[in-house]
């Protein structure tokens, strides 16, 4: 029983991390139907930059964020305006897979050149301790990851719902032509939307750096997991992705403590297939997706 509770607690915390890592992906798809395979590569680019800030300047990894978040926002706008905007709209989804796959390989190659292929890690004293509540151990690094994820998602949500930029972004998502008719610069808004998505990768990268050691090819194992999360959650729905992330995190944790790790990893794909069979728009997709 306590093992189940432990698995559940760890699952919820890990789900929070998944939500943070997947939120950007969901946004790109929502904004412009772009499947962004390079998102995990950008996560690890963020992790490497965090590593540099931590080792060169001796700062806490989270102090890298004031640098990496704006940097990634600008990078995101640049990627969208210079590359993705040039893809033909009729087969955007498929072509964006190829383009972003290329971007992922480029990032991996550059990381290998600058940082070499050896493992890097950011190891903080607080990252190996845990809080014990009623016999259940809650690792501090996972608690931190969970709260960073929660804060980031709340900010993201607030921006999308409350701000003028968020309104234009949602208008662009809902009906691009109509948005243009009421005077929204849809091109520019799409670029900013992409920038916001990539900014979440900067935050996610810092959290990842804290949790796991990494090397340039680390991003591949995350692509399948994160894609499964956003499909289950409903493409384009940031909230759906967050809920699906927590759901899959919990399922993964519980299956791991009761069955084994191979089945736990498989659960992502089991849920992916179930979603495609039963509810192809995802559990929170469809009309709800347009309202986030």
């Amino acid at each position, binding site marked *: 029983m306590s093992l189940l509770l432990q698995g559940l607690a760890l699952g919820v915390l890990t789900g929070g991390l998944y939500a943070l890592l997947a939120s950007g992906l969901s946004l790109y798809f929502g904004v412009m139907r772009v499947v962004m395979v390079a998102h995990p590569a950008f996560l690890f680019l963020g992790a490497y930059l965090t590593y540099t800030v931590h080792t060169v300047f001796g700062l806490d990894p989270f102090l890298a964020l004031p640098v990496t978040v704006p940097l990634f926002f600008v990078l995101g706008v640049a990627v969208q305006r210079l590359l993705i905007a040039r893809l033909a709209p009729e087969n955007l989804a498929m072509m964006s897979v190829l383009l972003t796959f290329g971007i992922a390989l480029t990032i991996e190659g550059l990381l290998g050149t600058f940082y070499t292929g050896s493992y890097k890690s950011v190891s903080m004293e607080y990252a190996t*301790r845990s809080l014990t509540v009623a016999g259940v151990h809650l690792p501090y*690094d*996972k608690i931190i990851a969970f709260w960073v994820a929660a804060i980031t998602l709340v900010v993201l949500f607030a921006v999308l719902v409350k701000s003028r930029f968020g309104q234009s972004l949602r208008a662009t998502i809902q009906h691009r032509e109509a948005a243009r008719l009421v005077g929204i610069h849809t091109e520019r808004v799409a670029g900013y939307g992409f920038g916001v998505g990539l900014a979440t990768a900067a935050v996610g990268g810092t959290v990842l750096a804290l949790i796991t050691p990494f090397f340039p090819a680390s991003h591949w194992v995350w692509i399948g997991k994160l894609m499964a999360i956003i499909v289950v959650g409903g493409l384009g729905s940031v909230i759906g992705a967050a809920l699906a992330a927590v759901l899959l995190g919990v399922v*993964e*944790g519980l299956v*791991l403590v009761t069955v084994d790790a191979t089945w736990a990893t498989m659960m992502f794909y089991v849920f992916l297939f179930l979603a495609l069979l039963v509810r192809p728009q995802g559990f929170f997709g469809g009309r709800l997706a347009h309202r986030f």
Partner: protein
Amino acid sequence: MARVLKGLAVISICALGLTACAKTDEPGGAQTPGRQTGPVKIGISLPLTGDFSEPGKGIQEGYQVWADQVNAKGGLLGRKVELIFRDDASDPNRVSSDYESLITQDKVNLVFGPFSSRLVIPAAKVAESYNMVFVEPAGAAKEVFEQGFKRLFYAAPAIASDHYNYLADYILKLPADQKPKTAAYASLDDPFAQGTAYGLRDKLAAAGIKTVVDEVYPPETTDFAPIAAKIAAAKPDIVVGGTQFEDSVGLVRALQELKVQPKLAAFSTGPTLAEFPAAVKGAVEHIISPVGWSATATFTGNQEMVKRYKEMFGGEANEDAANGYTVGQIVEAAVTAVKCVDPTKECQDKLADHIRQGTFDTVVGPLSFDDQGRPEQAHMIQQYVDGKVQIVLPESAKTADIVYPKKEW
């Protein structure tokens, strides 16, 4: 929308499958004519990019140091050694075609092996079909030796399941009141990593040390806390990980977080890498690992290799480089003994026969092989003592005493 979803599903599945695509080609055999003059060309395919790029480069450097030293001594049988490298990008299909073209087009005199069991098997099939001797630096899984290869030799002290032999002996000889009663095993789903952990598990289980957790996790596992939770619930006396790098760090951190305090913690591969102490900080103390090579050992050529490596590449030599160098030492000794270095069946047969029955002095100690090419020695056991790597077993090679039970992490 539906099309996009299908596309996404395909991508997800491909990402899942990326780690598991292994298909090998069986090439047809054809004899290549021998050449008597010019340099001795040695064909090598290595994973210089992709998953295994880091160890692949280490082995390449080991081969280069060996070639440099042989050429400084006047070459093999008076002929200069020339290494021809191909990059197989860690892909089992590429490695087959690499060796195929090295043998048939570059007409190399000898081939040396690639890195990792997954690439060694397809590569050795090609070499075998051309009757080439195949000494390899990194194919320790038991499957490698069950393919019926006649010319394959693994140039390291022990196959995977023998890595922990000295540690098993040590544990089983402990007095009854100190001897562990329960053990937990967690291993990566990989023939080499699993082989190391299972070798120890089988020996300890046979002697009555109960296996309380036996977990296998796939390579894409990123979260080790639930595995540690399972181990924590079983409260084992010792914890053994059949690991590579990321998972050894992940397990150590997760075990700390879940407050598991075993009397002994052993992990393969990870702790032998220089990056390990920085990744786990203070928890490194008293972690045990099997190791095939030590920079301080005085085996034949070891100090010269360490020195020359530093001159050529700047850093410290590592186990991968040592394994590559060992391949060179064995082949060099065989070529010198049988006095031929042609890609013909007669010459390669003579080389294989010589390697099979001889004992070779190398940087990892004296090596000899059984009929399937398995080395017949065992790995040393290293432990972090006061933050430094020390060899603690066997008795004859030790630089410090083993610490048991370990301090809490």
